[in-house]
């Protein structure tokens, strides 16, 4: 199973590197979303400082939906059938897709986060904690997206239903990540929010692995 995950993960990432949709389309579009807000609210530095982190997380969740949906779309029905006949466990396919989504989302978050720091100049003491918070949040969003794509794919409505499933289920992730960031800014405790992110990730990982086969066979 580990070998299958490794092989599929490499194929996902190579396919994305060649297609360039995350790097050439989704990241620039996310940056545009970040640029539009200062234009809309004007040069109000205290306001931008206040809303910057929240906007970053909102952009990450919304565009993360697109990233994970694109990930799931690369595996069409014919390839899914092929992998089944090759004896690849659906849980291995879930793990590979979720890992690939996590890596792509983390890259997306680093780029978008860097631009957020420049444009909004938020004051975040202890920003090093973000090195833990961001990957945890990205993993959660990626797993939600992969799970939602599997559910929507089974219903034959992958393109339309998946985003509607991802955004509401991502609320605990968005909440925990945003509150952890606010906690850093306020100098308050953030461990409970990091713990919530970790628990959500574990629950999603278990749900993904345990439901992969039933979802495929449904």
């Amino acid at each position: 199973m580990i070998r299958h995950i490794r092989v599929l993960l490499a194929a996902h990432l190579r396919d994305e590197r060649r297609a360039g949709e995350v790097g050439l389309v989704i990241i620039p579009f996310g940056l545009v979303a970040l640029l539009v807000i200062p234009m809309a609210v004007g040069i109000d530095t205290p306001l931008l400082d206040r809303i910057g982190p929240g906007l970053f997380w909102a952009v990450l969740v919304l565009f993360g939906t697109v990233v994970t949906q694109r990930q799931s779309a690369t595996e069409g029905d014919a390839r899914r059938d092929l992998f089944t006949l090759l004896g690849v466990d659906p849980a291995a396919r879930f793990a590979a897709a979720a890992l690939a989504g996590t890596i792509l989302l983390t890259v997306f978050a680093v780029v978008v986060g860097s631009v957020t720091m420049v444009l909004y100049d938020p004051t975040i003491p202890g920003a090093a904690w973000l090195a833990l918070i961001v990957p945890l949040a990205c993993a959660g969003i990626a797993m939600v997206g992969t799970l939602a794509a599997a559910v929507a794919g089974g219903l034959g409505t992958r393109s339309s239903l998946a985003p509607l499933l991802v955004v509401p289920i991502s609320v605990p992730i968005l909440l925990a990540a945003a509150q952890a960031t606010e906690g850093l800014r306020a100098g308050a405790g953030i461990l409970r929010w990091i713990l919530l992110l970790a628990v959500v990730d574990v629950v999603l990982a278990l749900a993904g692995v345990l439901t992969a086969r039933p979802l495929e066979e449904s």
Partner: protein
Amino acid sequence: MPSPIVSLEGVAVRRPGALVLRQVTLRLEPGESLGVFGANGSGKTTLLRVLATLLRPVAGVGIVLGARLGTGEVESVRPRIGLVGHEPALAPHLTLAENLHLVADLAGIARERADAALVDVGLAGAVDRRVVHCSNGMRRRAEFARIVMLPPDLLLLDEAHVGLDPEAALLVAHVIAEVTGRGGAAVLVSHERERVAALISRAVRVHDGLITGEAA
């Protein structure tokens, strides 16, 4: 007497809202190549997916390569089934070689077999071409390279001759002959009987989810 490759007795398959296969009874012996004909939407592809163990019957008894459909037994026989469907099972941004290497890696066999299979199907000069830049015929050949690389005991072809030039059609005939020649079986689904008549030993017709008899 050898066991049949496929034995279906009264098999039915339901899709949301309707039965798409009804009371299907079919037997396929070693060495046979069966043509399945019928109009679009008649249930041909559904039948093929049942034979591929990818769809679970809601009624009847089905046995494929000794494994009973709808049970965990099918997992052990799936690697012995070769399916070439409507759409190629290829990653569009990977090269032909990378696609075959991916299958080899997942199957746990040497990548050299993938390289040799690509040569066998006449794609030696295109191994580094990305799938998005390949013609439909080349994609079809790559699908057959996978079959050559992992020789199945049950070969299932869904309109697999579409888009093939005469040389590639010979390749399909060769692949079918290889499978049936060593005691396997092949099923060719098509709505164009003339295209596959020379490749099959017998034929059935599917109409509205029912096998209506041996095709003339």
